[in-house]
């Protein structure tokens, strides 16, 4: 939710708000995650991550202003838009045929208006939040939505066959939305209709049929309350997510329906009114009062869940800050929560409200008492042991993706179309080949890898597999001790079967889970490496380390690792040492010429020592 700092200040506070960063910081500590704050056109926009629990009441400037007032203790002072007009008798009929999908619908006819451009203040308010100003009529509906969180809509009265609005389900078919796009509705989707013509997908998007334009003179205003699940299902299926659908699917209080109608009416009169404008009475499908909600909580319960020692008076003080009415009997509070706080249902919800306002930083850290050691997880114990043994025998552990091109369990919505299956086996051949290509770079004699992980089979069950791959057949079986037979250079073993047969374990102590300082990662080059071998005759009395040091000293900064001895043999009082040298740049592909020059340097240094390159 993007929120304008100026909007909050001008519409909801007489006192000056603290600087925007301070406001954002306070919201972060007591209410919401802040995605960012951006200074923009003399205003500041706060990007607030309002999650579903507070999307009922805080997807609006007013909701956010209430939070700011609450947590910073700045008096909330809402400005109202005034307009002068008289109501005349209503000529509109509203027929809600699906009462369980629309429990309130208010319509109102206004005649003889003039659709103008929005005034600068309104344009600024919308544009700073990244909304495009269309005209004063459309902008007014968007403004009401962003201000108090209730979506509204406007239809062109002259495009209706009769002065009637029906809220009904559709029998399906093509629907032309605003801006010429067409979507296909399904039987049962809720629509706003006029006779046989469908005007809007309820709560989601308006249609072309009764779209307002610059020429519109007479209008019907809509403020409705649509079923959250119905709106959500239709909007998801159509892939149309709008500011409006977002508010409806998160459900907000029905008390906003009449308020938004009056608010929108005043704005429209002010922005588009003429001396001939006629405002009819609103037609309301259902005038039921919103039921008052009471939630009980005891101070003792709050203290026992938070681990604090608040007095009744401190709890009362927090409810006072919310401005909530309550009765107190002993340490039990009966709290009358306001209409808009649909999220508050039970004592735990009030515990959270008290906790976040009291401040989580003020909750003391309480030591968890000692607890007897629990039974040992046999699977983890043996998996860890097996890993330790494999590492000792030169294997490195890899993790590969769970998603593969061929398997048994297919996902209906995979991330990548080329990998729609969950793996049914662990195939290491591809990563093995990659690592073999990099053998010189890695400085290993042989690539030996393994992975232990879950695989998934047709009926939805899973297995724990060990897969390993080596270049050569293993001379000895390192996993003998676990009764695992490693015969070939590539194999998979069902570890659950193996572990089941192994002795039970009573303690983790023997795992030697010692702490080691975590090694820091260094970015590796994305460019190819170049390998060169050099063999040099040294006198028997000269240690090979001298040659190593000389190579390292002249190889320059493109040398990847210390030169590796790959061959050695003695003849006639001399020893030939062959070293493999690997070069790589972090910035580019090296050319033969560049590497050749480095090798020339090394060779001339060798010659200067009086040694002989073979």
């Amino acid at each position, binding site marked *: 939710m993007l929120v304008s700092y100026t909007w909050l200040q001008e519409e909801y506070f007489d006192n000056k708000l603290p600087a925007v960063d301070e406001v954002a910081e306070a919201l972060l500590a007591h209410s919401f995650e802040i995605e960012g704050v951006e200074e923009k056109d003399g205003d500041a926009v706060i990007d607030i991550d309002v999650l579903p629990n507070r999307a009922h009441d805080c997807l609006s400037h007013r909701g956010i202003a209430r939070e700011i007032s609450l947590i910073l203790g700045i008096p909330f002072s809402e400005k109202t838009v005034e307009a002068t007009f008289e109501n005349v008798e209503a000529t509109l009929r509203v027929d809600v045929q699906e009462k369980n999908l629309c429990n309130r619908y208010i319509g109102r006819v206004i005649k003889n208006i003039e659709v103008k451009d929005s005034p600068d203040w309104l344009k600024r308010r919308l544009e700073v939040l990244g909304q495009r100003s269309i005209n004063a009529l459309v902008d007014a509906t968007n403004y009401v939505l962003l201000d108090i969180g209730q979506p509204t809509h406007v239809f062109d009265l002259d495009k209706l066959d009769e002065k009637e609005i029906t809220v009904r389900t559709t029998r399906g078919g093509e629907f032309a939305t605003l801006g010429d796009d067409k979507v296909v509705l399904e039987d049962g989707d809720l629509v706003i209709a006029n006779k046989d013509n469908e005007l809007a997908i309820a709560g989601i998007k308006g249609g072309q049929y009764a779209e307002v334009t610059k020429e519109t003179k007479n209008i019907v205003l809509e403020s409705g309350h649509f079923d959250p699940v119905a709106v959500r299902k239709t909007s998801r299926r159509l892939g149309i997510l709008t500011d409006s659908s977002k508010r409806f699917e998160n459900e907000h209080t029905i008390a906003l329906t009449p308020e938004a109608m009056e608010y929108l009416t005043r704005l429209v009169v002010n922005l588009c009114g003429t001396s001939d404008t006629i405002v009819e009475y609103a037609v309301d499908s259902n005038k039921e009062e919103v039921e008052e909600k009471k939630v009980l909580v005891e101070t003792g319960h709050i203290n026992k869940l938070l681990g604090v020692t608040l007095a009744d008076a401190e709890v009362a003080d927090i409810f006072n800050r919310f401005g909530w009415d309550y009765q107190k009997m002993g340490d039990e509070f009966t709290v009358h929560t306001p209409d808009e706080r649909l999220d508050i249902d039970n004592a735990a919800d009030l515990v959270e409200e008290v*906790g976040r306002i009291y401040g*989580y930083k003020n909750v003391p850290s*309480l030591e968890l008492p000692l607890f007897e*050691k629990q039974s040992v997880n046999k699977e983890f114990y043996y998996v860890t042991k097996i890993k330790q043994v494999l*590492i000792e025998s030169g294997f490195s552990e890899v993790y590969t993706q769970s*998603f593969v091109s061929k398997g048994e369990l297919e996902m209906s919505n995979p991330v990548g179309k080329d990998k729609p299956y969950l793996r049914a086996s662990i195939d290491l051949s591809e990563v093995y080949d990659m690592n073999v290509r990099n053998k010189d770079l890695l400085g290993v004699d042989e690539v030996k890898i393994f992975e232990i992980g879950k695989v998934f089979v047709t009926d939805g069950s899973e297995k724990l597999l060990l897969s390993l791959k080596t270049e050569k057949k293993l001379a000895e079986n390192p996993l003998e001790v676990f009764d695992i037979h490693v015969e070939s250079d590539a194999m998979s073993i069902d570890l659950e079967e193996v572990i089941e047969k192994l002795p039970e374990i009573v303690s983790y102590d023997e795992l030697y889970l010692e702490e080691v300082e975590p*090694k820091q*990662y260094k970015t590796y080059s994305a460019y190819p490496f170049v390998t060169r071998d050099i063999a040099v005759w040294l006198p028997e009395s000269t240690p090979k380390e001298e040659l190593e040091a000389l190579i390292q000293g002249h190889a320059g900064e493109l040398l990847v690792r210390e030169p590796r001895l790959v061959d050695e043999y003695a003849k006639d009082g001399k020893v030939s040492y062959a070293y493999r040298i690997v070069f790589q740049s972090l910035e580019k592909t090296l050319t033969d010429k560049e590497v050749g020059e480095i090798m020339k340097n090394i060779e001339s240094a060798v010659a200067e020592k009086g040694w002989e390159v073979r």
Partner: protein
Amino acid sequence: MKQKGHIHPLTQTIEDVIRIFTNMGFELDFGPEIETQEHNFDLLNVPKDHPARDMQDTFFLKGIEGSIPRTQTSAHQVPYMREKKARGEIPFRMFSIGRVFRNEATDATHEASFYQMEGLAVDKKGNITLGHLKWTLETFLRETFGGEVKMRLRPGYFPFVEPGVEVDVFFGGRWVEMLGAGMVHPQVLENAGFDPKEYAGFAFGVGIDRLMMARHGVDDVRLSYQGDLRFVNQF
């Protein structure tokens, strides 16, 4: 000369986490990676067709009704609690570690499958509080990072806890979101057969990949799953 191999940094982190929590008396219990939607969502207070389901994009499986690759290790909470209740083993402390799956576009900070850890403790009301949760997380973070760690709790929303908190750690000059936690929601306690008037619990979830990245200075989550020894052999 025999060369030793290298252990994956995620394994190093997981083993460390397991050492820390088993020492605190938490029992390690892996749940399945394919879970029922009931365990993964409904019993955790995330009803069908509720916007809270969008917080985690779910993979669906062809031909298997009602089961999904779990989106969170929290899926193991209710089955474990029910088992403990049936055995009369209360209070209890449990933790679980394993892969979870989210249908998200991948980038340097997002993988569609990654490792998560879940912690859960249930006891008589009053014996287990948000204050105890705070201490547990402080202890965990201090031991994982090997020294005092600056940590803060701020309001967060996870449907299966109430109050819910996000936990940030001050790392490399800024606050980094490290885990989510809270007191077990009364509805979840009830779903597992515990009377919320009598019992309370705390729960927390940790992104193991993020923890590993912070410990080892790794800047791309995807490096872990490429099977590339240029990465693994550094550790």
